[in-house]
């Protein structure tokens, strides 16, 4: 009785029946069986077809827009959001590695309690108990509460923390981490405040510049927004009509920015301000450049002896004169003050001297030269190291009953001399919100793990802003992988029980809060009429930004003075013969990237070393001390000592050694633990002359061989270059 059916017809019918229907039999009447899948996938998910969600990268404070590729509910790739005005579809190495933050095997599932601090013996508790403990402690503490946050804390969370603290009359959160300290974020904003009257992180437009002078700004590696500067740099190198910008870089060590520069000078550490001052002096005295430049320079140039400045900075006088002429004659000339200045005793002086060059050439940075519209949104402002010191003093004096720590790792990032761990002993309850147990969580009593940024809601007012304000949106792109809870929701839950806080934070959850904030934003570049549509588009496009408007008139620089002097250093020349150059690793940044195998296992661009930390030294230094690659050296400063492997490189001054930040973790998961050494242990807790910054770039060190040696995990082979054999 069977009807003949060819294989081809069968396929046709099968395909017509689509995925859920199947031809069950051929008897009459035809019967169809609908197969129900065991698990019903969400309706927007089709096997083999990707879904994309827009959110914000939180690997560094910049706030680049990312789009996430999802296959069957799993996040498999991050790309830059092409619509986002900051990064324009591009992403850096750290941004690309973000998925491992989400799927990290050492992430915490559920809150933990530690009975003895430092014991690393945690007991799991449930969320109700964890939140209750926090609530009871806060209720008892009254105003004796402090929040210590990092710059990657999203602005919405900063707002919620601030409201909670304000409601109980406690001082505002302290936002400080090593990454922004090494990048000089706070110091540069202060310097811009002195020059332009508006304290904001400067953003330099390079795309149309003729000449760029970078004073220790590692803007193609880690500084402020390396992605956006990469985009600017790409355009800078191939401008219309075959024009190509010229980049001159001044730094004691060859960084990847130095490598890409046309001219690179290994200047003496701490002499950036001197060089800028000398350039101003030469332009003023030589009457150089386009009309008006020399007059402008005369009003700003410090009184200094150019010959002596050239000698002290290690630049030939002729080179200085050549560059001064080049800078003054270029129509668009930009000078960039880098993060390394922030750690020098004279950092603010140097930053002002460098910014004076921009005043002379009339290229004030975006982000500070116009007043942004009021968006009605809270945004973080970074604190100085001096503020951290006063927090530590409060802790030591017993004025802090509950300390909440989010997005920063002070036990790893602060020098021992700051006395953070000693002061922590005086705080009855320390709560960490870290998703992985880090060095600070080990010294806390309660861990309430926050979600990773790819599972969280939030917003971030983008900084640096390159001319127009941008609010980047953050939304969960996958269902949470671990039993973590959004810190915003934890705070809102706790606030409900504290009457003053309940009034200040009347939202049911953080989505409620976000919806209200987004509804208040002005008109965006994309159309959105109703509040609902506004919220949906905010998440769909990855944020809010206005349509490009005519440039607002630039603010005029305020009168300011430029003085130039060389930075001071701890340690005398005989006992500590070498300057210590500390820099954030391109991959591990200040150490937060050390938890990710993708960032650990990819070779550093300059040394090609993966998984390890090292001390860069010049072949002359190495020859004198008979040091070879991989020799373990004891590096001693007046403040401490570490042991690290030597890496001999011609890309550094003979009087300087360089150590990247990032390694030397005792905790932070299996990939970071017990690897290399932490350069912060060589630093003191002294302040810079002005602005209350940490003087991390003013230490001298001594080197000694330990007699031990390790094999260097480098990609390059040094056979026949500086070594006889690769390794033993």
């Amino acid at each position: 009785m069977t009807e003949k059916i060819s294989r081809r017809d069968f396929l046709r019918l099968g395909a017509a029946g689509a995925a859920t229907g199947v031809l069950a039999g051929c008897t009459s009447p035809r019967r169809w069986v609908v197969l129900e899948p065991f698990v019903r996938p969400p309706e927007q998910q089709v096997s083999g077809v990707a879904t994309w969600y827009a959110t914000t990268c939180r690997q560094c404070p910049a706030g680049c827009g990312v789009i996430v590729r999802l296959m069957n509910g799993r996040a498999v790739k991050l790309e830059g959001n092409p619509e986002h005005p900051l990064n324009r579809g591009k992403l850096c190495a750290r941004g690309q590695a973000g998925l491992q933050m989400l799927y990290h095997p050492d992430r915490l599932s559920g809150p933990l309690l530690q009975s003895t601090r430092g014991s690393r013996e945690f007991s799991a508790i449930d969320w109700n108990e964890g939140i209750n403990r926090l609530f009871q402690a806060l209720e008892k503490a009254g105003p004796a509460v402090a929040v210590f946050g990092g710059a990657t804390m999203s602005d919405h969370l900063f707002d919620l923390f601030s409201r909670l603290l304000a409601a109980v009359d406690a001082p505002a959160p302290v936002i400080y981490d090593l990454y922004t300290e090494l990048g000089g974020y706070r110091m540069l904003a202060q310097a811009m405040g002195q020059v332009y009257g508006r304290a904001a992180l400067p953003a330099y437009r390079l795309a149309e510049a003729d000449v760029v002078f970078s004073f220790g700004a590692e803007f193609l590696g880690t500084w402020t927004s390396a992605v956006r500067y990469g985009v600017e740099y790409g355009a800078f190198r191939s401008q219309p009509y075959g024009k190509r910008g010229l980049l001159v870089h001044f730094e004691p060590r060859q960084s990847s920015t130095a490598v890409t520069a046309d001219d690179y000078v290994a200047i003496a550490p701490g002499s950036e301000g001197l060089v800028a001052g000398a350039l101003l002096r030469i332009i003023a005295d030589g009457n150089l450049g386009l009309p008006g430049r020399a007059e402008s320079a005369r009003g700003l140039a410090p009184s200094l002896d150019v010959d002596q400045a050239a000698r002290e900075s290690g630049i030939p006088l002729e080179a200085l004169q050549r560059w001064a002429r080049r800078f003054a004659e270029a129509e668009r000339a930009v000078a960039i003050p880098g993060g390394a200045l922030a750690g020098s005793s004279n950092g603010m002086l140097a930053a002002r001297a460098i910014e004076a060059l921009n005043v002379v050439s009339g290229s004030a940075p975006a982000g500070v030269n116009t007043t942004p519209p009021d968006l009605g949104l809270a945004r973080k402002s970074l604190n100085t190291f001096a503020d951290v010191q006063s927090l530590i003093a409060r802790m030591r004096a017993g004025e802090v009953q509950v300390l909440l720590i989010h997005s920063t790792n002070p036990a790893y990032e602060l020098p021992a001399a700051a006395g953070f761990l000693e002061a922590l002993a005086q705080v009855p309850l320390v709560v960490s919100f870290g998703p992985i147990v880090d060095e600070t969580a080990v010294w806390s009593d309660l861990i309430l793990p926050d979600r990773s940024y790819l599972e969280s809601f939030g917003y971030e007012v983008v900084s640096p802003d390159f001319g127009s304000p941008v609010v980047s949106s953050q939304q969960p792109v996958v269902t949470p992988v671990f039993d973590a809870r959004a810190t915003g929701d934890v705070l809102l839950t706790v606030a409900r029980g504290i009457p003053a806080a309940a009034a200040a934070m009347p939202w049911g959850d953080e989505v409620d809060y976000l919806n209200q904030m987004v509804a208040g934003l002005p008109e965006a570049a994309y159309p959105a009429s109703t509040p609902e549509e506004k919220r949906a588009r905010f998440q769909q496009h990855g944020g809010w930004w206005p349509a490009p408007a005519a440039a607002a008139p630039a603010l005029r620089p305020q009168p300011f003075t430029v003085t130039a002097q060389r930075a001071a250093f701890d340690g005398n020349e005989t006992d500590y013969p070498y300057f210590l150059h500390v820099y954030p690793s391109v991959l591990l940044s200040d150490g937060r990237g050390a938890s990710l195998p993708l960032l650990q296992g990819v070779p550093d661009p300059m040394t090609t070393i993966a998984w390890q930390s090292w001390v860069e030294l010049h072949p002359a230094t190495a020859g004198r001390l008979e040091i070879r690659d991989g020799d373990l050296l004891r590096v001693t400063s007046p403040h401490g000592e570490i042991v690290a492997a030597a890496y001999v490189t011609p890309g550094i001054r003979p009087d300087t050694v360089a150590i990247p930040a990032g390694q030397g973790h005792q905790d932070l998961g299996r990939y970071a633990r017990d690897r290399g050494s932490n350069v912060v242990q060589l630093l003191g807790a002294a302040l810079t002359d002005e602005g209350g910054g940490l003087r991390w770039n003013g230490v001298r060190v001594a080197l000694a061989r330990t007699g031990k040696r390790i094999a260097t995990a480098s990609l390059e082979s040094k056979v026949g270059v500086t070594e006889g054999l690769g390794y033993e």
Partner: protein
Amino acid sequence: MSELETRLLDRGPSAAAAPKTELPSHKWTMLIDLDKCTGCNACVVACHVENNVPIRSEREVIRGHGQHWIRIERYWEGEGDAQRATFLPMLCQQCSNAPCEPVCPVYASVHSERENLNLQVYNRCVGTRFCGNNCPYRARQFNWFAPQFEGPITEMLNPDVTVRSGGVMEKCTFCVQRIRRVEEDALVEGRPLRDGEMVPACAQTCPTSAIVFGDRSDPQSQVAQRLGGQREFQVLEHLGTAPNVYYLKAGGSDGGAG
């Protein structure tokens, strides 16, 4: 039934008279402008994530078994204190006369004439490593051990790309899974591929747009337009491997096109 399904079904023997749906041929070419490469490693990490390339441990890296389909090579130029570093991203050069192909005893390393690609068929590979030995660019990476992805890290593996097992040679594929995807999209929509539609992971993330990818046989493509300039060179050109990766020497501009 989608148009693609119809076309695929129509390929049966009884449909001999149906219009040909063979995929068009391409000359996939990559151009790397060294004047714009900043050595930032974004391409390297993007490639690892896109292509499920495992990260090898410190011990393996020390043994020279680090595994990256694209890597930043850092060279020193000049003498003494004037020594300056330069960066060169190195990946499979997709040679037209590939030295890796004739030495493979099992045809795991084969050439696609249609796409101008150098293919690696993982399930044919028996791990003789002759191809790696013969590659002058050291572009081929051998899986000395099966890759390890711990815990939920397996969730981020790209389902479009095979995870290679131990004992298998692997290398850059020019993101062939992305090529397939855009080709199928174009086929379904019944149009030729557009220039810029196919972007490999490294080029997509490159902040400075130093990496440009496209079909050289399309004279209007960005790659074709930028080829033939004074800065152009190929690595180890004299070996006659005829790579399909072109480099532009640093220190100059070809103006406007970038």
